[in-house]
């Protein structure tokens, strides 16, 4: 057995089987059950509708308990890994349970609002699962054995080197490099705003701009100076490549966290909508 076991494969996919069984049972009973004709078609108010609705509501409450369970470090009520595995699979099974509960009936009302919120929570959760399973791999590949810090140290080294090389070049080039370095140090917060971190772009990267500027100036130099400039461009490209990797790393990290900003608040909105749904249905029985 490998050291690492994905939460999806927890106990040989125990909760996958549980969720699959739940979905299969729900679909089977739905297909079998013949609602009284006064309802015209299946709906949430038949015995099956109430049953599926109760299962769905209990599931939602339990799924939300993960937020509490994962903070209870001393609890020995199952492992957090197991809880998370069950959270994922049972969460997905809600799609089937809730859809059959409403019997494919949708409208502009709070009942469908609860359904829509649930689907959004599940969709954000799906992204979360994807991110947690895929992104560490991408991050490892992106870092290639380095860390964020070593990459930044290298950037700093390269900047020093660039400045040194630039000493041999005309003043305008030298000024360009000095400026870019200064601006990079002063202004740039690698990654930038949260939105920029998510997108993984930084159009105003001073070193990239300086390099592009330098390339435009390139043809005016000749002989040894041209060679030195070529080397300078190469070093600057390295800086750009390194900072791109840093940015990519930050992007992946941001994406791994951002979904929770949807998942958690939306599930609380869902909890409220669900409460309203249940109360409204029985208030006007």
């Amino acid at each position, binding site marked *: 057995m490998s050291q690492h076991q994905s939460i999806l494969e927890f106990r040989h996919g125990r909760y996958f089987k549980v969720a699959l069984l739940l979905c299969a049972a729900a679909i089977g009973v739905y297909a079998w059950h013949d609602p009284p*004709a*006064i309802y015209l078609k299946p709906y949430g108010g038949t015995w099956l509708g109430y049953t599926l609705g109760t299962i769905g509501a209990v599931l939602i409450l339990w799924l939300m308990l993960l937020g509490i369970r994962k903070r209870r470090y001393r609890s020995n009520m199952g492992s957090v890994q197991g809880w998370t595995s069950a959270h994922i699979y049972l969460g997905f099974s809600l799609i089937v349970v809730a859809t059959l509960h409403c019997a494919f009936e949708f*409208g502009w009302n709070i009942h469908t609002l609860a359904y829509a919120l649930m689907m959004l929570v599940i969709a954000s959760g799906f992204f979360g699962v994807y991110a947690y399973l895929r992104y560490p791999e991408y991050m490892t590949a992106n870092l290639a054995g380095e860390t964020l810090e070593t990459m930044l140290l290298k950037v700093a080294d390269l900047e020093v080197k660039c400045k040194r090389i630039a000493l041999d070049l005309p003043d305008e080039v030298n000024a360009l490099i000095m400026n870019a370095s200064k601006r990079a140090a002063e202004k740039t917060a690698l990654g930038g705003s*949260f939105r920029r971190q998510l997108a993984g772009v930084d159009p105003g990267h001073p070193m990239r701009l300086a390099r592009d500027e330098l390339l435009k100036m390139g043809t005016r130099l000749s002989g040894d100076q041209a060679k030195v400039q070529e080397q300078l461009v190469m070093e600057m490209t390295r800086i750009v490549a390194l900072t791109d990797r840093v940015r990519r790393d930050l992007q992946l990290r941001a994406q791994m966290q951002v979904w929770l900003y949807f998942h958690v608040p939306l599930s609380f909105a869902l909890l409220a909508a669900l409460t309203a749904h249940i109360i409204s249905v029985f208030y006007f029985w």
Partner: protein
Amino acid sequence: MDIQVVYVTVNRRGQSQRDQQRVAGPSISVGRGTQCQIHLPDPRIALQHAHITVSESGATLEAGSGRVQVNSHEVGGAKLAVGDRIEVGPYLLEVESPPAGVPLALSVTLAAPLAAHGGDGRRFTLRLPRASKRRLSYIAFIGTLLLCLLVPLAPELLGYPQTPSATAGPGRIDAAEPGRIEHVVRTVSTRLLQTWNPGPVSRAHQPVGADCLTCHAFPFVQVRDVSCIACHKTIKEHVPAAELKGAQGQAFRDMRCAECHRDHKGMQMAPYAQEQCADCHRDVKSVAPDAKSGKATDFRTEHPEFRLSLLDANKPDAIRRVRQGKPASPDMVERSNLKFNHALHLDPGGVRDPEGKRDASGVRDAQGRRTVLRCDDCHQPNEGGRLMAPVFMELHCQRCHSLAFEPKVTKRQVVHGDEAAIATMLREFYARLVLGDVPPDVNPPPDLPRMRPGAVVTYQERQQALKIADEKAKLVLRELFETRKVCSTCHEVTPKAGGAGWEVAPVRVAEIWMPQALFSHAKHTTEKCTKCHDVSQSKDSGHIAMPGIALCRECHVGARTVAGKVTSDCATCHKFHAGSDFWHGVLQAQMLPRGKK
């Protein structure tokens, strides 16, 4: 084959110190890892940054996972010579002239120490949105709860009195005008409350659909009948409650309207479920011991033959309900006292027609005196199209069946159906002729004595003349009723005892055979009349040409859909609220105020 490595460091006083070591060859790795023979502990160095291999012929450098520059040129590998400067990250490795017996000597200097450019002020930590997940969650939860639950229920939660419309019927109407805030709260909450509606209300309920409380009068209680009966005041029971027995009968008596009638299911209110009818009609006698209806659970699979409601012309108050079936019941005969032969009238060769041909297809003989009759010559749908309108002598028969009393004398006819009026009319007609006043349309009969026009007559002569006229009228009346069989063509005519006139048996023809059925002719106009009513062999009026269940089943099936057939549940043909009692005995006056029951 060892090589010599000298680590050059600078002490606190700025003096360089050389630490000379021997490293075992021939293969030497350079890197951050502790297993490397030339160990360069700096994060900017790769784990296995480069390799140096020494042999008899010299030393070669090979870049590993890190960048290596030899004499300021980036290389993947190089042969090393004395004086070469190798840049490995921040370290400078210089190839020195080796002492004897050693193939390679290197000095290692940390050219760019880490501290030299440590804090350059870069921020690279992950920035998260300013709002915390917790705060967002609170906002989402409270906001949704407010919009979806608390505001819609605000009038209830704030204890505002019910609006008059909510308590239908004898609702309380508050004299005080609602305040400004209350008005706003009510307006907003009413709007938001609409989002609770799970589906559109039925058409009939649209006028009251905007106010949930019209029907849902009691919170957390299923819709009560009082809410329904507030508007549906005249709704009737299915059968008298007293006839129902046992627990099932009790359950039926306690049934709520909403158990059959479900709203919010689209434009039509879902009316009923056939299973609910079948619950009792599977074995109706166990619920209502006196019930006459047969076992019925589905029109296609289990439904008794139809019962017809038959009249008896001689017993005006009696209605016979006779069930169809094979062999037909001897009672399955119409006792209308009318003589009528459908087969004769519908002879494909046509019937004699006093007015000659009617249309091209109706012409039969050279004189054009025969007409082929069609069903709709006599049977026309009534106003609603559901039933057939009654057949009238004057409208439908008399054109051929003339009531002319003496055709050679005049084309005038007697009235239909009133012996006294006929007698009077005849007396007056002949009296006028005898008295010498002959109208232009009359060809006076030669055997009738007449006074000369303009002659002065005595009283006795006039009395004599009127007596002659009376005699003639009596004769003609007898001819109509007896000799010429004008009346008895269609009617049962018997002379009264002592010559006091004639008795014409009263006629009662069924206008509706299944009075409780929801059948409509208008919905069956695509079929030919004869498809259901075969009268081609019907030679007397006792014969009943009503279709049986088998014929209906050619097109209609039960509640379960069958391809190519008309799905028909109980309510397709039957009325449920057809009894005489008010629904559950609940009258408007007995309705409970809101909050009770």
